[in-house]
């Protein structure tokens, strides 16, 4: 109990908890789950954008998209490393994702149908992710906070890049502008759902808030996102797919319409348009790659044995 009280004091004093520090089992568990889900999201998130690398409409965009997806893989790697400081192994975490036990962000269960979706993902999905992630740069757990600082820097670059794709489309031919509007129509609501259930219905938040893992509520972050994004959409000359959207002069916030939480639940339950394709793709990569990983391990062991033998001789 003394340890727990001391721990909470450190948290309250905004000290960073480091891997070798004492921490409550529930804190460790919550963080392991959150960080690894975040890592899984980065890895699964490579797929929808990866779908357009081979069809990117210019070499400049192709290179930028490939670099972006590579960054996401890098984020996955830092995040797995951060989770590993809590005592989990990457392999075990990845297995949980592949078996469907661990979740990844539901947003990646929507398909990328046109090039504009690549713009919309950068602008909206990365935009929403940043809203969620900036406060995590001050998360009480040191390795996670540091990983998030690096991730956020790259994400905001991606977000600007995505917005720039949208600007180009919005200024382009009629077909391009339509494509941009269509992408906004499809991605808007799922992005609002990225912040999770409304505060009234949200679990986990209490402990996470006390531990300074979570510093803003889902609804607060969602509102920040809406307030930041609506003017950007207007600048593009696009219409948000929400007839109830209205600026509230009194509060200075944009009020948005009702979110279809049934859709959210269904996607979370595995019934989104791409859940099965995403898991199937990751499983296939994992299974097809097994012989490569085994070869690398066998080779490393052979070399180690040879080195020992040489040293012994």
């Amino acid at each position: 109990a003394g340890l727990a009280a001391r721990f909470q004091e450190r948290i309250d004093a905004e000290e960073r908890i480091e891997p070798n520090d004492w921490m409550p089992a529930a804190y460790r568990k919550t963080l392991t789950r959150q960080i690894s889900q975040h890592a899984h999201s980065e890895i699964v998130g490579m797929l929808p954008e990866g779908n357009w690398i081979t069809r990117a409409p210019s070499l400049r965009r192709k290179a930028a998209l490939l670099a972006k997806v590579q960054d996401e893989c890098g984020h996955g790697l830092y995040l797995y490393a951060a989770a590993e400081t809590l005592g989990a192994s990457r392999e075990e975490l990845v297995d949980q994702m592949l078996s469907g036990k661990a979740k990844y962000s539901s947003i990646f269960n929507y398909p990328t149908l046109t090039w504009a979706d690549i713009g919309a993902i950068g602008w909206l999905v990365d935009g929403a992710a940043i809203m969620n992630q900036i406060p995590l740069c001050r998360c009480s757990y040191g390795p996670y906070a540091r990983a998030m600082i690096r991730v956020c820097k790259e994400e905001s670059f991606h977000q600007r890049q995505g917005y720039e794709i949208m600007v180009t489309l919005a200024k382009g031919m009629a077909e391009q502008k339509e494509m941009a509007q269509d992408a906004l129509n499809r991605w808007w609501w799922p992005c609002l759902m990225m912040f999770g259930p409304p505060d009234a219905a949200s679990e986990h938040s209490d402990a996470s808030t006390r531990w300074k893992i979570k510093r803003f509520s889902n609804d607060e972050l969602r509102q920040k996102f809406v307030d930041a994004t609506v003017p950007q959409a207007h600048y593009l000359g696009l219409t948000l797919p929400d007839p109830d959207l209205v600026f509230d002069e009194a509060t200075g916030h944009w009020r948005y319409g009702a979110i279809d939480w049934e859709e959210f639940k269904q996607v979370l339950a595995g019934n989104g348009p791409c859940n099965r394709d995403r898991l199937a793709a990751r499983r296939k990569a994992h299974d097809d790659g097994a012989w490569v990983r085994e070869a690398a391990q066998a080779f490393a062991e052979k070399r180690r044995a040879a080195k020992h033998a040489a040293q012994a001789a």
Partner: protein
Amino acid sequence: MAEGSIKVAETPLVRYLLRRADDALILGHRLSEWCGHAPMMEEDMALANMGLDLIGQARTLYTYAAEVEAAGHDEDAYAYRRDVRGYGNLLLVEQPNGDFARTMVRQFFYSAFMDPYWRALMASPDATLAAIAAKAEKESAYHLRHSAEWVIRLGDGTDESHRRAAEAVAHLWAFTGEMFEADAGERALIADGVVPDPESLRAPWRAAIADVLAQATLAVPEGGWMQKGGRSGAHSEHLGHLLSDLQYMQRAFPGARW
């Protein structure tokens, strides 16, 4: 003008540049197909990295070709608006990814040639070419190291990885001869000292291959018939399908800017 395929005024230097750019683009495109599907995340990173380097090389080469051709084309016109018969890449680089062993052996065969090639090209009196080569050489040195390490690891790993690596070497060998070819236009550039003679790299290439394959406990294939045709647009059937994906957007939205 925004419709259909472009006509390229192919002077020897333009053709030379387009062929090398095509090599880099097509191989980079193939590597990018792995994105999200690699055997381990570190290789997702590495394959994307090599793909990015190659696409970057293609862009600088196309851009220089556009400058030399001076017909108002740009990198995208070359990449997206030439049909399969206009592409001059090596057959080697258009071969499908296959398994990871094929991808790595393909990369190794190519990089073991390109790395010394870029080094030789750094001495070109053409300052643009020399600069492109200097940048590319740093990249190809890494590609060579990375792919050679994998060839060794797979060859000397498990029985299965050995079998797959040996199969990849056997399958891709016939596509390596084309790297050493030069047509009359390129011969003229060689004679003028503008570009190196690929033939002069054959012996060092063989030596590098022999060294790595030996470490990989793999045999160097015996001579054998060499496939060619890529340089003159006589490709395999694989390239056309790659191009339908690669070029779809530019073809479907003629004149659009992205």
